């Protein structure tokens, strides 16, 4: 049965501004279905973003929504979450937002293992500003600032997340919306910092420059270049060259930041009382 997206949409702001075939909408839908499954009240959820096409998401959603500055969504979200650890904070970022200018906040949110879910819509490009290279633009691919092909190797956002300490890390694609939903759902359920990277298409700014001018072509490319983690383990490295691994890449248990802080408060208050008494 059709999912009731309207419940979560600010219908007066629809249709949204994303280009025809842009994958962001697919990710947002997966996220909304996952939230519905969590059974959370809309009042208890905040959706936070930076700047970029992806980061326009909050404006369409009927939650507590916060559209911050480029790259800084996790910083704002950290304050929000610490102020109300009992509420749910979801951050949605583009690849540039999360991994270029926002790289440092990303690293440290992972390290703290704060109970926030980060969804990165990785479309290999700066969509909003007109197709400049992003840290995930694959080597040799074109962008408006990489007219001769990118000479910087692409960053593997999930690997960095794992190394930095995130405790739930998964990668899905817009070619597989239901799997993506499942990863987001598991991320939301997870206590700790969870990262879901959604490989997505930007036909207008990335596809067009790289001989995939339609969304369908790009989504196909994405489908063809994802290797499920179970299969990836069996493949020799050469065969993974130029591909990306999908699935739940890392799940771990580590103390969660706001809970640790709650414990710290108890400790401090006990010590202070002790000092008085």
């Amino acid at each position, binding site marked *: 049965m059709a999912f009731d997206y309207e419940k979560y949409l600010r219908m007066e702001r629809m249709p949204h*501004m*994303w*280009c*025809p075939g842009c994958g962001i909408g697919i990710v947002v839908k997966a996220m909304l279905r996952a939230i519905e499954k969590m059974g959370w009240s809309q009042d208890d959820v905040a959706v936070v973003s930076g700047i970029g*096409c992806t980061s326009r998401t909050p404006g369409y959603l009927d939650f507590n929504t916060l559209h911050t500055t480029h790259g800084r969504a996790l910083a704002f979200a950290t304050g929000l979450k610490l102020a109300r650890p009992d509420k749910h904070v979801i951050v949605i970022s583009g690849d540039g937002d999360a991994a270029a200018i926002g790289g440092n906040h990303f690293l440290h949110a992972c390290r703290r293992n704060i109970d926030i879910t980060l969804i990165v819509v990785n479309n290999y490009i700066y*969509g909003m*500003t007109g197709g400049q290279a992003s840290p995930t633009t694959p080597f040799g691919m074109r962008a408006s600032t990489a007219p001769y092909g990118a000479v910087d190797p692409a960053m593997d956002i999930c690997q960095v997340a794992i190394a930095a300490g995130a405790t739930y890390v998964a990668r899905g694609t817009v070619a597989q919306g239901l799997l993506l939903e499942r990863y987001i759902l598991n991320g939301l359920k997870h206590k700790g910092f969870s990262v879901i990277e959604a490989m997505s298409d930007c036909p*207008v700014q990335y596809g067009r420059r790289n001989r995939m001018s339609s969304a369908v072509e790009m989504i196909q490319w994405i489908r063809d270049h994802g290797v499920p983690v179970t299969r990836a383990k069996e493949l020799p490295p050469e065969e993974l060259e130029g591909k990306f691994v999908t699935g739940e890449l890392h799940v771990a248990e580590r103390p969660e930041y706001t809970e640790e802080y709650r414990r710290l408060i108890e400790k401090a208050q006990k010590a202070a009382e002790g000092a008085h008494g």
Partner: protein
Amino acid sequence: MKHYELRFGGVGGQGVILAGAILAEAAVIYDGLYAVQSPTYTAQVRGGATKVDVIISDRPVIYPRATEIDFFLALAQRSYDVFHHQLKDGGIVLVDETLVTRVDEDRYRVLRVPITDLAEREIGRVVVVNAISLGLTVGITGVVSRRAIEQAVAARAPKGTVDMNLKALNLGFEQAARLGFPVEERTEEAV
């Protein structure tokens, strides 16, 4: 003194801004006039209303935006609505009649051409809307020479599309003639 203010309005992706640049190039590079092309973006991504002003003059252009527009080409209703205000009373409004339906007839001289339809029907490619529009614009206003706009269009056309674009440009001139604006003689050495 020649001083002509034009505005092209459309939505992001239609390419009116490029069309404005080509017209300005025709004026500056090929006709030796002064010109400013000055675009306005209202949204960062596709689908928002955009416009471009082109001011052509035989003296240096001081203010780079149009304030008393002689000619307004509107390829989208939204764009017409937002951007027509600075048109002179009695100025010419040229619209794509399938896309723009509500126009202030009392204030302006309104010309209607099914530009997008023509592009599809006659040339088979929507992208040539701009070339047709340029033909129409120059045909109607005579703001630059036909030869200049032909050279400018040819110089900007992507490889392999020069002929198609010149054909479309010509179609524009024909449409202008149909509307009663005289056709300048064709320059054959254009390419």
